[in-house]
């Protein structure tokens, strides 16, 4: 950085936060390209961050390039706002970005950085979702050579990925991919939608919010722009299915804490070996609980 260079006052927002403006410019350029070519893995110069690669450095670089005073940030890890990683990331932003609020309520956030989940509450056009990605390329399981993978992406050649699905059905009678389900964006590029469960994949389709994916270690940024088609790979006669959380009698399990029957559930094994189920999205669970107690109060 040029030490003698001072930004004009009206552009002061540009040097906001932890990243220097060159780093932010690099990331923003990559974001623009990623949004312009939905699903394309845009390479970018990933910076060293004050945390280990693999702990969400890709997501954090996106967040720090996008955030400004007046924004409200929510950080989720495994659906929860209170896990160590989420708390640390939130704390880091609070330290380095004056004027930024943090929140746990999905509805309050303007920017959400997440790992493993997309919030249960529907996102809006005003919100922006940043997902941390460990392995950006869905083709890595079928083709070891990066050069060949790039050609395959360019030509939209995903037959070997589909062959993998075919093999799954042959062996297990269903597609067994639980996380990182390969999803075709805007009719061409297939992406690894980060380790979100199948349950969240339909949320990519025609999303109101811009969804950005950042892989810090692999140095890639890609996007599902708002109102874009996102189709999970499947066969005409073996459609994509999400987790249905049915117990043995075919009834939908409910969250043991809030009673919700429309959320992604985590299986928790109690001390006695007994299984119980709870919302994975802690904010959603809290909201449901609050609504229920309000209803109880109102009826009393």
């Amino acid at each position, binding site marked *: 950085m040029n030490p003698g260079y001072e930004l004009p006052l009206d552009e002061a927002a540009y040097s906001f936060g932890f990243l220097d403006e060159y780093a932010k410019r690099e990331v923003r350029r990559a974001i623009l390209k990623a949004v312009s070519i939905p699903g394309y893995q845009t390479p970018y110069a990933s910076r060293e961050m004050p945390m280990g690669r693999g702990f969400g450095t890709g997501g954090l670089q996106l967040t720090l390039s996008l955030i400004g005073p007046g924004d409200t940030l929510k950080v989720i890890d495994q659906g929860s706002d209170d896990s160590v990683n989420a708390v640390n990331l939130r704390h880091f932003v609070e330290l380095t970005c004056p004027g930024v609020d943090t929140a746990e309520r999905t509805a309050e956030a303007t920017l959400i950085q997440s790992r493993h989940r997309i919030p249960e509450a529907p996102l809006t056009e005003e919100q922006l979702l940043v997902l941390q990605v460990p392995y950006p390329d869905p083709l890595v399981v079928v083709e070891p050579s990066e050069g060949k993978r790039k*050609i395959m992406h*360019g*030509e939209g*050649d995903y*037959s*070997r990925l*589909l*062959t*993998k699905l*075919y*093999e799954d*059905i*042959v*062996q297990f009678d269903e597609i067994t991919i639980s996380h990182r389900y390969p999803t075709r964006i805007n009719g061409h590029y297939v992406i690894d939608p980060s380790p979100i469960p199948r349950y969240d994949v339909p949320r990519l389709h025609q999303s109101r919010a811009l969804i950005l994916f950042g892989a810090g270690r692999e140095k890639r940024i890609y996007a599902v722009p708002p109102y874009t088609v996102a189709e999970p790979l499947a*066969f*005409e*006669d*073996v459609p994509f299915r999400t987790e249905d959380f049915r117990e043995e009698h075919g009834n939908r399990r409910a969250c043991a804490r809030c009673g919700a029957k429309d959320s992604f559930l985590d299986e928790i094994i109690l001390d006695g070996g007994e299984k119980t189920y709870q919302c994975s999205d802690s904010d959603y669970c809290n909201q449901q609980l609050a609504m229920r107690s309000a209803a109880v109060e109102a009826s009393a």
Partner: protein
Amino acid sequence: MNKILEVRNLSKIHGRGCPQCFDTTGPAQDTNICPHCGSVVAAHDVSFDLYAGEILGIMGESGSGKSTVVKTLFFDETPTAGEAVFFDGDAQYELFSLNAAQSRWLRNHRFGMVYQNPHLGLNFNVSAGGNIAERLLMSDIAHYGEIRSRAKALLARTEVLPERMDESPKRFSGGMQQRVQIAKALATRPPLLFLDEVTTGLDLSVQARILDLILEIQQELSTAMIVVTHDLGVIRLLAGRTLVMRYGRVIEAGLTDQILEDPQYAYTQRLVASAL
């Protein structure tokens, strides 16, 4: 009869090449390595026509350039010079000026290849049926049930036991692997099939059954084929016409029975005389 393939002056040099390459190599010079620059002239000035439904044999010893010819036509290798036109109904393709996507489309939809080494033609990480599925998926068939039944029918046709359909070809015998390769190559019913030493290294009895299968398929589907082999028996059995190659050049071409009974050139005479 309709022409399906027209190859003109096909050349392939491995190495940087120099202006003397073609003059200093060939049967007369008894080498295919250029003494000036050390490049290998794998094929030079190869021209031929192939008609729909016919089998053309390319015969020669190893290093004669016979495999190079089919590999360039199947886009496995890029030729140094030459032209090839593929006639497909009303469409015509200049094979060596297509872009990557176009050549991939032809490879997947209109051509088939069976390699001597099954590792080149098959993916050993997926099942035999999965290998065929892959080729069907490449040609945009996305119905699991249909893929499954077509794979089953193809494997049955090439005499692979249907109960072994979901096994990896890793566990198959060499003959069975070739059958899976043939089934895979035929999955899209291509009008043009390349066979590169498909029976080399197999037991005689297994060889015979594979050759029978190829002939039966040729009659059923009237697929045009280019059969590359060093085996006179294979040529005699399969090919109507034959090219004889040596040091990258076609030294003799004719009807197969004529090549075998009345060879014109010293090399071919020696080759035919040394057949068992």
